[in-house]
């Protein structure tokens, strides 16, 4: 069943076009990699699908409901309850301990302090970082921070996880371990994952790859507009 849908999504920053009519269906439980060179619009697409950005034209739907027309408050509620977001640098709050960081989305959603901490610790345990519960981000390695950020993204048991270059700041082996965990947990929970990456090796963890080029889906994966010698296109 189609869970997320983009129809002819257009988005520009001032006069610079980022997306020039992207159409994409994401099925429930699917792991989709959105790839393409820098500046191809992949992060913008992720932000539009996650309801963080509103497209200039086109539609974004969630379970058949158009969310691009919703108010910021309604989209923000959707993000808090149904979506999880994981960015390149975990972006943990430096002043809070790891467990407080992980519990944060639950506290914001109104869960009681004790229940939120219990859930946070359980997710940290699944990701192998339970012993860091009372450590602050500044004292952790990049891989540990990213595991905590993943626990924070998953603690609300979101239906969709949006991950933007989640291993971009990690060394190859640590990145691989983080990604393997992410994919395993997503499959266990049947969480849909939209994974933005420019690395073919990372995209290979997904079920499917959608390639963007110059703000459009490139079905050939090699640049539709690339002219080859010989004249004819």
């Amino acid at each position, binding site marked *: 069943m189609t869970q997320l849908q983009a129809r002819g999504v257009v988005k520009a920053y001032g006069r610079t076009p980022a997306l020039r009519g992207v159409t994409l269906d994401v099925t429930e439980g699917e792991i989709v990699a959105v790839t393409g*060179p820098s500046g191809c619009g992949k992060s913008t697409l992720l932000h539009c699908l996650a309801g963080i950005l509103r497209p200039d034209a086109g539609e974004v739907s969630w379970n058949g409901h158009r969310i691009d027309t919703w108010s910021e408050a309604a989209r923000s509620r959707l993000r808090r309850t149904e979506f999880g977001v994981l960015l390149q640098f975990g972006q943990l709050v430096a002043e809070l301990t790891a467990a407080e960081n992980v519990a944060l989305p639950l506290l914001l959603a109104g869960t009681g302090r004790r229940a939120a901490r219990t859930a946070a610790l359980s997710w940290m345990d699944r990701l192998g970082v339970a012993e860091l519960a009372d450590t602050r981000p500044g004292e952790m390695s990049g891989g540990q921070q990213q595991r905590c950020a993943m626990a924070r993204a998953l603690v609300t048991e979101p239906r969709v996880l949006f991950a933007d270059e989640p291993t971009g700041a990690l060394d190859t082996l640590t990145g691989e371990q983080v990604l*393997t965990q992410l*994919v*395993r947990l997503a499959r266990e929970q049947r969480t849909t994952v939209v994974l933005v990456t420019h*690395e*073919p*090796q990372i*995209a*290979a*963890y*997904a079920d499917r*790859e959608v390639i963007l080029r110059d703000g459009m889906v490139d079905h*050939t*994966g*090699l*640049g539709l*507009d*690339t*002219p*080859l*010698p*010989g*004249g*004819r*296109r």
Partner: protein
Amino acid sequence: MLLGLLAAGSRHGYELKRAHDERLPRARPLAFGQVYSTLGRLQRDGLVAPSGQEREGGPERTAYALTADGRAALERWLAEVEPPMPYVASTLFAKVVVALLVADADRARDYLVAQRQAHTERLRELTAVKTAPSASLDDIVAADFAIAHLDADLRWLRTTLDRVADWHREVHS
């Protein structure tokens, strides 16, 4: 490789074949004939020597062990740096160059698209192999090797297309 497998102790041909296929799980399996012909050559050169006969229900089998010369040869081989890509030779490389040269651009594009897809699918298969909970260290190391090479091919394909596009723009602007 056979000298390396004998470093741990004497083995007969069948054991060597099995050890080779286990240690290099993604390599082409070693043929028995190849094992015995190589052992014969190594024995002729004084690098291995028969260390005993064994019979377990089947035909008699000769076990081989490294000689002192064999061990020295193994150590020399291990210490020797491999020439890093002395020649750029690969069928993929040759095909892409030819594809870019042929007059029919559509056919060249079709080939490049199909090749990219085949590479991507193989990359996904190998990623599944190495992330499977049952994967052994040998499986992972072998898959990593193939993945890194496929990844390099894909990057090169992409860069080549970008270069060709740039070149085309320059020539036609």
